[in-house]
C-alpha cells in the first residue's frame, strides 16, 4: 500500500494483510502560532474500537476533525482505506461523526434526522425506510421516531446522533466525547451499549475521550495523546501494566515512581539503584532506553509485611523498607502511605481479601514487596 515501513507503535495487525482503515502520516495542524497536532503518525486498524485518550486541549478533537475533513492539516497526509483524502471535502469521505454537541437538526423529526444521510445518497424509499427503522431499533428508539430532538433527554439525543451516523454504514465512525455530557449512571450504561453496537456492526470506531476509565473499558487499542503527540499506544493492559512515560503512568491510574539508575544487567534481569534500594525489572523493558529513568509499580501490586519481626522477603522479589505514615481503611481495600528509607512516599493498596487481616498502623516498620515483572520503567520528565 504505502511505502511506510517503520513500525508505528501498535502497528497494524490485520489477518487478511489489508492496510489500516485510517492512516495519519506526519500530520501537523497549527492555529496561528498554536500547534494543536504535532507531526502525528497513527494507523487505526480496520474494525477496531480505537480510543484517543488525553487531557483537555491535547488535540484530540482537532485530530478527529481532520479525519472527518472539517480541518485541513497544515502539513502531512491522511488516508482512508489506503486512499489519500487530505484534500477531500467532508461530504465525500466515507466516515461519519457523532459530534460532541450531537448537532442534531432541530427542525426535523428523529426519523428525518436519521434519514438525512441516506437521502443524500439517493437510497430508494423502501430501503431507506427499512434502514432508518433498523438503525432506530439498534439504539432502542423505535418508539420515538416521530419526536423532535428537543423533546428528548440528553441520552436519547446522543443515541439519535449515533443512529444518524451508523445508518450510513460508513467505513469508520468518529465519536467526539460522545458520553461526556451525560451523568455517570447513563454514561456507564451507554459505554456498554456502544461497545455492543460496535461489535454488532463491525465498523471501525474512533472514540475521543479524556476519561481513562472509559477508554480502558471500551477500546481494544488506546492512543494516549499529549500536547498534540501520541505518548504511547497499546491495549488497555499494555498501557496500564507497562506505561513507558511518566505521563501515561499517572494519567491511567495511580503509580509509584522512583528515580532510578541502571546499575547492572544480567540475562533477563536488569537491576536499578532506586534511592539505595535494589529494584529488579525484566531487562526487555530497558532495551533501547536512555536518558534519566524512573522505575514504577502500581499501588495494588505491592504487598506489605511487618519488617520488625525479621520477616523474610520472598525470593527474587523487589523490596523497599520503610514505615507506615498513613493507613486508611476504605472497605474493599486499605490504602497505605509508606515512607521508604530512601525518602520516597509510596502508595500501597492492600486488598481486603480474607478475614482478620491486620491493619498496619502508622509508625510500623514494613517491607513493601512486589514481583520484578510488575515493575515498569518510564522516562523521567524534565522538570518533574
Amino acid at each position, binding site marked *: 500500500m504505502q511505502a511506510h515501513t517503520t513500525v508505528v507503535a501498535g502497528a497494524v495487525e490485520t489477518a487478511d494483510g489489508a492496510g489500516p482503515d485510517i492512516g495519519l502520516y506526519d500530520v501537523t495542524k497549527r492555529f496561528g502560532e498554536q500547534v494543536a497536532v504535532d507531526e502525528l503518525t497513527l494507523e487505526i486498524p480496520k474494525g477496531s474500537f480505537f480510543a484517543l485518550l488525553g487531557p483537555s486541549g491535547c488535540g484530540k478533537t482537532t485530530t478527529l476533525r481532520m479525519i472527518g475533513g472539517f480541518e485541513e492539516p497544515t502539513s502531512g497526509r491522511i488516508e482512508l482505506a489506503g486512499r489519500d483524502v487530505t484534500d477531500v471535502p467532508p*461530504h465525500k469521505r466515507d466516515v*461519519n461523526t457523532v459530534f*460532541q*454537541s*450531537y448537532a*442534531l437538526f432541530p427542525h426535523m423529526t428523529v426519523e428525518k434526522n436519521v434519514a438525512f444521510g441516506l437521502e*443524500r445518497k439517493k437510497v430508494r424509499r423502501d430501503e431507506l425506510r427499512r434502514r432508518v427503522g433498523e438503525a432506530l431499533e439498534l439504539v432502542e428508539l423505535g418508539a420515538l421516531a416521530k419526536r423532535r430532538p*428537543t423533546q428528548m433527554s440528553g441520552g436519547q439525543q446522543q443515541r439519535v446522533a449515533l443512529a444518524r451516523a451508523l445508518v450510513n454504514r460508513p467505513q469508520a465512525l468518529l465519536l467526539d466525547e460522545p458520553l*461526556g455530557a451525560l451523568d455517570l449512571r447513563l454514561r456507564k450504561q451507554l459505554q456498554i451499549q456502544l461497545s455492543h453496537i460496535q461489535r454488532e456492526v463491525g465498523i471501525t470506531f474512533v472514540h475521543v475521550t479524556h476519561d481513562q476509565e472509559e477508554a480502558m473499558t471500551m477500546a481494544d487499542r488506546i492512543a494516549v495523546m499529549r500536547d498534540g503527540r501520541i505518548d504511547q499506544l497499546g491495549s488497555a493492559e499494555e498501557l496500564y501494566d507497562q506505561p513507558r512515560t511518566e505521563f501515561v503512568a499517572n494519567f491511567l491510574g495511580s503509580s509509584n515512581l522512583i528515580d532510578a539508575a541502571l546499575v547492572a544487567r544480567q540475562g533477563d534481569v536488569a537491576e536499578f539503584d532506586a534511592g539505595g534500594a535494589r529494584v529488579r525489572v525484566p531487562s526487555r523493558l530497558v532495551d533501547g532506553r536512555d536518558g534519566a529513568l524512573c522505575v514504577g509499580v502500581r499501588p495494588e501490586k505491592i504487598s506489605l509485611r511487618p519488617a520488625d519481626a525479621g520477616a523474610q522477603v520472598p525470593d527474587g522479589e523487589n523490596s523497599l523498607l520503610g514505615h507506615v505514615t498513613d493507613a486508611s481503611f476504605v472497605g474493599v481495600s486499605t490504602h497505605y502511605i509508606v515512607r521508604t528509607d530512601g525518602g520516597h512516599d509510596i502508595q500501597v493498596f492492600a486488598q481486603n481479601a480474607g478475614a482478620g487481616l491486620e491493619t498496619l498502623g502508622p509508625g510500623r516498620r514494613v517491607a513493601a514487596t512486589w514481583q520484578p515483572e510488575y515493575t515498569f520503567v518510564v522516562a523521567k520528565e524534565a522538570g518533574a
Partner: protein
Amino acid sequence: MRTRVDRIRDVLIGAWAVLAIVYLFIPIFVIVLFSFNDNKGRFNFTWQGFTLRHWKDPFAVEGLSDAMVTSLSIAALCTVISITLGTFVALAIVRYRFVGRGATNTLVFLPLATPEVVLGAALLGWFLTMSFARGFTTVLIAHVMFTLGYVVITIRARLEGMDLHIEEAAQDLGANQMTTIRKVTLPLIAPGIVAAGLLAFAISIDDFVVSNFNAGQTVTFPLFVYGAARQGVPPQVNVMATMLLGLALVLMFVNVAIQRRAARRDAALGPQPARV
C-alpha cells in the same frame, strides 16, 4: 422592611411609566380618533363629531389610493429583494473567509449610520450623473440600499447564534454546500429572515426623506401626505394610517409567534456541557 419612602418611590415610578406610555400613544390615538372626525371644510384638526363616512369611502381622495398602492408595491418588492440579497450577504460574512470580508461587513452598515438627508441627496446626485430617470425604480433601489443593512444585521445575529456543528453534521452526512444551505441553514435562520423582512417592509413604507429626493413624479404614501398637508390633510389619510397600524400590529403578533416557536424548537438541544 418596606419603608414609606419605598412605597412612595414605587408609586412615583409607576406614575412616571404611565405618563411615558401616554406620551408615546397620544399621537397614535389622535390619528385613529380623527379618522372618525366629521370635519367640515378642508382641515381636520378640531373634533367636530363622530362619523363613519371616511371609512366607507377611503379612496375618495384623488391620488391617495395610487400613492398607497405605490408604497405597498415598493415595500413588498424592496422586502423580497432585500432579504434575498441580505441572506446571502449575511451567510458570506458569517460563514466564509474571503478577501474584502471586513470591508463588506462595514460597508453594509454604512447606510444605517449615514443621515438620511445625506443619503437621499447623494443618491439623487448619482442618479442625475447616470442620467437615470427618477421614479418607481430609483425609489426601490434607494429603499433596498438602506434596508439591506438592517436585514443583514438581523440575519447575521441569527446565524451567529447557530451551532456550527449542525452544518458540519449535514456535510458529514453527504450534503454538499448548496444542499446544506437549502436543507439546514435556511430552515434554521428562517425566523431571522421573517423578522428581517418585516423590518425592511416597515422601514420602506414609512420612508419620506430618501424617497422625496429620488421619487421624481412618483408619489408614495408619505409623499402624498406631505403634499396634501399644505391644503389640509384629508381624513382618509387617517383611515389609511389606521389600517397600516392594524396591519403592523397583526404582523408583529405573527412575528412574535414565529420567534417563540423557533425558540422552543431550538431550546435545550444538545448536551449542556457538564465538563470540557
